[in-house]
């Protein structure tokens, strides 16, 4: 059984296990400091993002600089409806790697912003949960074709990712990017129309219950009726013309709307981009039968949107199945792929007992003896994005350090994502999963191709690779070996290895392997000179590429 009682004490190694899974790692110094607190207190603060350690002031200030490019830095043009202004970029501007229209629907810029946030947000758990939900409610840019709406969805995960699961499910169902992604905006069940069942199917199969777990085809069709007409409008101010393609319009924001025949105010637009002057009806009316219950989808209830009661009935009518579904996803992402049926049942029961309050669920799970069980440490293979971000956090200057490198690596992320191939081929095209089932986790992260590209990313991270843009060379991952990695000069090759292992935290490495590395790199007497510092980078590369380096 999964012992879900909380641990009462923890070691620095336990702290690092927690920080790897619930964030993007901590340095050994930070871990030792955190270990001084009782685990319950420390984990509560970590999950809540409360307390001095999680002060977002410096982070938000950096986000607000023009260097980073605020999201989305656009404003309505007052004279031409539907056009937007993008501010001119003041010169000199050493770190901006794109022109003034950078934000106009650029997936790569949006990816860079997400990565930058993951690297520097002091509230790391928020980003980790956003990544988790992005995988679970996987929505892809290649169909949404709108970077602003994709970022809006990620922000939804940041703000509601620790609320109640039914509230999150409802919010995602009203999210514009999701509406486009799974055809909700085209789901017309008024009159004799046949509803488009794409979203309803995936709600049950991928987002709440799992395949063959408590529903049938009739439930799908009925839920599709309940959610018909769910779409969004947007204001003139959020209307963005793509400068690269004038016929292509996007919206920076969207407001949920049930198209049920009610009048639409003239200052709003339908997603189709066509101004509406007449009422529009796509929502089905009457009653549906879902999970054997009869539900009225014509009226609103409890202040809910029309049909919303059907979505909420998933938890009330199929709570056991939903808790089981969530438990599987949480265990695979946060604990271990090797959970037993009893473990699953225990965690599912805990989720139900917590009434699907995700904050309470995560606190219980991540404080538990089960989570800290040594058998579960390094039991997972890490995904390429969090693996990369963790490496960047370990090896690169923090937001508070290195004024000359302000704004600290946004250009690096932008240059990296500009060469989109590397991240995509490493197996996780951020903001653009190929399908609504997201990315498979654990062992599925690794194949010969993804490992090939991890070696490329590891080289960029450890070996000081730079890339040129407009005649200027930028270090992809600015890192100072002597001051950043080794504030105390190592006195032996073993000392270099020990420090890098403490920073990068790979899983256990066979002694014969690390001995072979050291004898290849330092066959003769050790001196901490420029040559050794270059070799320290190569050793970091070897650790990052090793099998142990993929575990966390």
């Amino acid at each position: 059984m999964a012992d879900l009682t909380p641990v009462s004490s923890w070691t620095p190694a336990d702290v690092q296990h927690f920080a790897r899974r619930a964030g993007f790692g901590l340095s050994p110094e930070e871990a030792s400091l955190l270990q001084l607190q009782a685990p319950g207190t420390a984990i509560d603060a970590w999950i809540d993002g409360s307390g001095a350690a999680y002060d977002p002031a410096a982070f938000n200030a950096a986000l607000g600089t023009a260097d980073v490019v605020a999201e989305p830095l656009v404003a309505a043009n007052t004279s031409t409806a539907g056009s937007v202004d993008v501010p001119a970029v003041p010169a000199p501007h050493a770190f901006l790697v794109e022109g003034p229209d950078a934000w106009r629907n650029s997936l790569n810029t949006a990816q860079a912003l997400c990565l930058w946030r993951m690297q520097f947000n002091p509230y790391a758990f928020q980003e980790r949960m956003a990544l988790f939900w992005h995988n679970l409610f996987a929505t892809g840019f290649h169909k949404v074709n709108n970077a602003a709406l994709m970022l809006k969805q990620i922000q939804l995960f940041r703000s509601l990712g620790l609320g109640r699961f039914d509230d999150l499910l409802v919010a995602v169902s009203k999210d514009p990017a999701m509406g486009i992604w799974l055809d909700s905006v085209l789901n017309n069940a008024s009159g004799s129309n046949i509803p488009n069942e794409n979203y309803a199917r995936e709600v049950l199969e991928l987002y709440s219950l799992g395949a063959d777990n408590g529903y049938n085809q009739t439930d799908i069709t009925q839920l599709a009726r309940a959610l018909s007409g769910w779409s969004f409008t947007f204001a003139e101010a959020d209307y963005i013309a793509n400068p690269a393609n004038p016929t292509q319009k996007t919206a920076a924001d969207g407001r949920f709307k049930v198209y049920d025949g009610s009048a639409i105010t003239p200052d709003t637009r339908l997603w189709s981009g066509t101004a509406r002057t007449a009422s529009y009806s796509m929502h089905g009316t009457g009653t549906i039968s879902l999970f054997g219950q009869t539900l009225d989808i014509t009226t609103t209830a409890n202040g809910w949107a029309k049909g919303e009661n059907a979505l909420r009935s998933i938890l009330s009518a199929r709570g056991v199945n939903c808790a089981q579904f969530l438990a599987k996803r949480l265990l695979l992402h946060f604990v271990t792929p090797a959970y037993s049926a009893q473990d699953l049942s225990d965690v599912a029961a805990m989720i139900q007992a917590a009434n699907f309050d995700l904050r309470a669920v995560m606190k219980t799970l991540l404080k538990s003896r089960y989570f800290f069980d040594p058998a579960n440490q390094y039991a997972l293979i890490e995904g390429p994005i969090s693996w990369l971000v963790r490496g960047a956090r370990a090896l690169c200057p923090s937001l508070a350090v290195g004024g000359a490198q302000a704004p600290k690596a946004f250009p690096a992320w932008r240059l990296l994502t500009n060469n989109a191939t590397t991240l995509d081929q490493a197996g996780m095209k951020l903001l653009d999963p190929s399908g609504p089932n997201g990315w498979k986790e654990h062992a599925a992260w690794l194949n010969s191709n993804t490992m090939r590209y991890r070696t490329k990313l590891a080289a960029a991270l450890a070996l000081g690779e730079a890339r040129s843009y407009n005649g200027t060379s930028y270090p992809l991952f600015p890192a100072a070996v002597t001051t950043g990695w080794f504030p105390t000069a190592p006195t032996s090759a073993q000392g270099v290895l020990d420090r890098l292992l403490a920073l990068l935290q790979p899983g256990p490495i066979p002694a014969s392997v690390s001995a072979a590395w050291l004898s290849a790199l330092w066959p003769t007497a050790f001196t901490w000179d420029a040559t050794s510092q270059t070799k320290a980078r190569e050793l970091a590369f070897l650790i990052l590429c090793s099998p142990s380096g993929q575990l966390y």
Partner: protein
Amino acid sequence: MTTRREFIQTLGATGAALAGLSACGGGGKGSGGGGTSGQPPTPLPAAPILVVVNIDGGYDWLNVMPPNAGANLSVYQAKRATLGITDPALLTDLGSGAALNKDLTGLDQLHGLGRVAWIPGIGMPNPNLSHFTSIDLWGQGAAVPAGTGWLGRFADAAFNPAGDVLRGLTVTSDLPVMLKGSTRSFVSITGAGGYVFPAYLLSGSAVPDAATLEAGWGAALNAPSPDAATQAAAQAGKLFFDAQNNTAFGAGGSLTARTPSVPYPGDAAYPVTRLNGAALSSSLSGQFKLIAQMIAAGLPAQVYFSRLGGWDTHSNQAVDHPNLQRTLGGSIKAFYDDLASITTPSGNAQDRVMILAYSEFGRRVQENNGGTDHGTAGLSFCVGKAVKGGLYGAYPDLSNLDANGNMKFTTDFRSLYATVLDRWLGQVTAATDGLLGTSYPRLGFL
């Protein structure tokens, strides 16, 4: 659960022969199938190559091969009032009440040559209409999920675990379950150039990083570690190292840098355009080009895997579907034509290659507003000079749908696998049956 008895009854009701399903097609003499009067098939090659094309997303094959006569036509017209393909100008008659949509560009010509075996109504018992469940089952090729794929198990049996690293390849960046074996997996290669470590690691570095790294991986792989995660990581990395060390690659890990250079002519002049007249380029033609390069380079691969996504047409099908078909058909035709110009030590590439196309399911017969929702039975097809062209298995009866309005399958998808394993990949009958868990009737196109 469709029973064996029901399965046979379905076949009987549609007039198909029971024995091996082979009598209804093949070589233009098919009684129940369309048959073609094209050139006779060539003998099976000594060194066959299988190129799998995954039509990803569940394609609406009912609009690719719509009924054009008989009782099925009226059902089709009623349920496909706006999306149905009924204009004879858009269709090539295949006989047996079925026609081929000319948007599947070039396949009508290959059919005319007798080079295409069509298997309409291919599917599985108890489909749950989930893409992901169905993809898993098609990949595994076994009724009970086993975690390995039918081609992965073939690799386990046929490939040498200590070598043969390039004998199975996918040109997709992932590793589909279909290719997963328990001892020997497939390599993923997405480009012909630079299949190596970052170049500067190999240029002028006094430290033999690559060798050091690889030795570390090998040591980790061989360590008596009970840790499954480490083992999985080590296997993935080792496969990459083994592949990039293979002498099949030239300098800098590049096929194109080999001396003499890879003689792939490539980019056959084949006009394929979108509905709006724009030129069509696709990831699939790029994948085929890479496969052709690898064949031309003499890579020892026996199985290649490729994929074209985008077929989940719940909406906007009237525009998206023709473009997808043009991409699929046009790319296959160009690839097939290009293969003729590649000479390998084991013979001309066009003689050696068979293309197998499949999708996880078809779409529902009744259209929704502008699209089609998830269905059941699909259409697989095989293209090659050794193929006996025609229709195999029964076209589904559109007036006999299941409770959800979906077609009932007429040929188990594992019959296709059994046929390919036996008669193309050279497995003996017992081995094939072992790989698939039981014996399935063979189809007569090989």
